[in-house]
């Protein structure tokens, strides 16, 4: 049982590259914290610093009230689940789980009862004598989990543990991990690049970009009030539509609430197709360019008639001027059709011109 506190943690590599540029996060006892961000944002490095696999070049890492900057990984009382599972290929499932306990000089009887209990929980009991290569991907993943839980550590660390599984198994394991964590009530830090995984697992969500924290908080709160355009487009799929706006446009449509607004964001699901303009809201005339019908919903890709630049917040974004609209699966406008979509005032997100500040109108 422990909380984990990071105080202005920094990592600068000998070459001068700054991977982590001062991160402050506080994870309470028993909480599930998810670090999410695009690849290269520093989330794995940060996790490995908590584990003790990377040296800390600035700031403090505090686990359960003890500064662990100089403490060996073995002595931090943590357990880690790796992306590629990192099982010992030459050891049986039983020995994979027992190894960490034996290294700590635990009695063989106690080891046996712990491993068997973990195997029962993870449904690995029939496979204890197998070698990792004789297991499926999902089973290996569970062995990696088992290796972590038999240790009964203060903190679990997960480094993208589900990214090597296929989509179906990923969802199942996601639920399993969450249930297990609730039951054991162990403080956990979990790294992923998948925003859906992050949203569903987290008590506290930490959105990272470029070695910095963009926003920390409850996942739904972050979804509802993203602090920056980066967070706005990273959390939620498909991403939020972001449009740069001219001051006079804002004034005319929003009644001149905030003159320093540069970017307007609207989530695809917050649009409706309508001829009316809600009071204080925004209406856009669109030409339908493509349609994706996935059954429960339909995505409409339209271009704005006015030439507008969208703000590039994350790589792999839509081309400028394109707007995504999500409507119920029963509807589908024709390609080439001119439609008009609108969003109410409460669903508008306003950001400063550089996208770094959210403006509450």
């Amino acid at each position, binding site marked *: 049982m422990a909380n984990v506190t990071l105080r202005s943690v920094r990592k600068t590599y000998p070459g001068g590259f700054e991977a982590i540029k001062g991160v402050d996060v506080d994870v309470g006892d028993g909480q599930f914290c998810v670090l999410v961000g695009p690849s290269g944002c520093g989330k794995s490095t940060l996790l490995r610093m908590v584990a*003790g*696999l*990377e*040296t800390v070049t600035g700031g403090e890492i505090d686990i359960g009230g003890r500064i662990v900057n100089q403490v*060996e*990984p073995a002595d931090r009382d943590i357990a880690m689940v790796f992306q590629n599972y990192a099982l010992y290929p030459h050891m049986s499932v039983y020995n994979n789980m027992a190894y960490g306990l034996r290294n700590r000089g635990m009695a063989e009887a106690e080891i046996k009862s712990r491993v068997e209990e973990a195997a029962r929980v993870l449904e690995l009991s029939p496979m204890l004598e197998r070698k990792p290569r004789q297991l499926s991907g999902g089973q290996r993943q569970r062995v990696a989990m088992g290796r972590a839980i038999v240790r009964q550590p203060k903190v679990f660390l997960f480094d993208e543990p589900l990214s090597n599984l296929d989509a179906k198994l990923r969802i199942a394991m996601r639920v399993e991990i969450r249930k297990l964590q609730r039951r054991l009530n162990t403080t956990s830090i979990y790294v992923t690049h998948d925003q859906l995984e992050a949203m569903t697992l987290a008590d506290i969500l930490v959105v990272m970009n470029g070695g910095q924290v963009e926003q920390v908080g409850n996942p739904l709160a972050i979804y509802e009030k993203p602090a920056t355009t980066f967070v706005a487009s990273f959390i939620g799929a498909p991403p939020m539509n972001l449009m740069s706006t001219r001051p006079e446009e804002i004034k005319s449509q929003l009644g001149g609430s905030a003159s320093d607004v540069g970017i307007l964001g609207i989530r695809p699901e917050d649009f409706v197709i309508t001829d009316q303009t809600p009071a204080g809201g925004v209406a856009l005339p669109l030409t339908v360019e493509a349609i994706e019908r996935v059954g429960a919903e339909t995505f409409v890709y339209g271009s704005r008639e006015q030439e507008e630049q969208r703000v590039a917040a994350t790589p792999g974004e839509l081309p400028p001027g394109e707007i995504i609209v999500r409507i119920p699966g029963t509807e589908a406008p024709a390609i080439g059709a001119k439609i008009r979509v609108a969003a109410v005032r409460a669903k508008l997100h306003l950001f400063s011109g550089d996208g770094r500040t959210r403006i509450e109108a």
Partner: protein
Amino acid sequence: MVEEEGFRRYVAHIILWIGIAIVAFPVYIAIVASTQDNALIANGQMSLLPGGHFLQTYYQTIFVGTSGSTREPVGNMMLNSLVMALLIAVGKIAISIISAYAIVYFRFPFRMPIFWIIFITLMLPVEVRIYPTYKIVADLHMLDSYAGLSLPLIASATATLLFRQFFMTVPDELLEASRIDGAGPFRFFWDTLLPLSRTNMAALFVILFILGWNQYLWPLLITTRDDMQTIQIGIRKMITTTDALTEWPIVMATAVLAMLPPVFVVVVMQKLFVRGLVETEK
């Protein structure tokens, strides 16, 4: 800590430098000895620092040879070694690549028996069949010839296996595509397979060149004429005479010259060398 700390790193550096010193010491001694006066060495008075006879010794070694019994310039021996090494390397690659091509890209009667006939030669190094092979080479009047030096060493299975393995990894679509483009077996081989095999061929060449240059037992048997000697044989003959007559600076200069080409190849083409070594042992 998995990231190594200062102290452990220093230990690692020190151990590695000790290793390098052990590995390099004999060669250092050879280089030093090749620059010193023979009389000093013969008295057991050799200095551990280079002497002043560098140019003189190497000139005599390369262009004149020892003043004793064999008097064959080492330059000529190096030429023989070079020709033999190149013949072995190029010959082996050439015949192996075409036979591997036949085995992988054609179906014909006796395909597998032929593959096995080639494969089993892996188990017959020249050392276990020296005299009968010697007799055949003699019967074919190939003693003291480059053909006799290289042919028996050319046809082993390693290169064939390597190319076969590589060809198997070439996607079928490439052949289908070039067939649709109207290419026959020759075109496909020349325009597609050979360019793809370039790195493999280069890696193999590096290894085969070194192995060829370093051949010893076989050249020892089949060269009787001094002017057909390879450098490895020459160096042995130089220390045949009674100790007192051995001209050590020249012997050591010859040793240095014998090491130079293959070591140069290893150092300069390190990537290809490592690749070739790992691939041929698979």
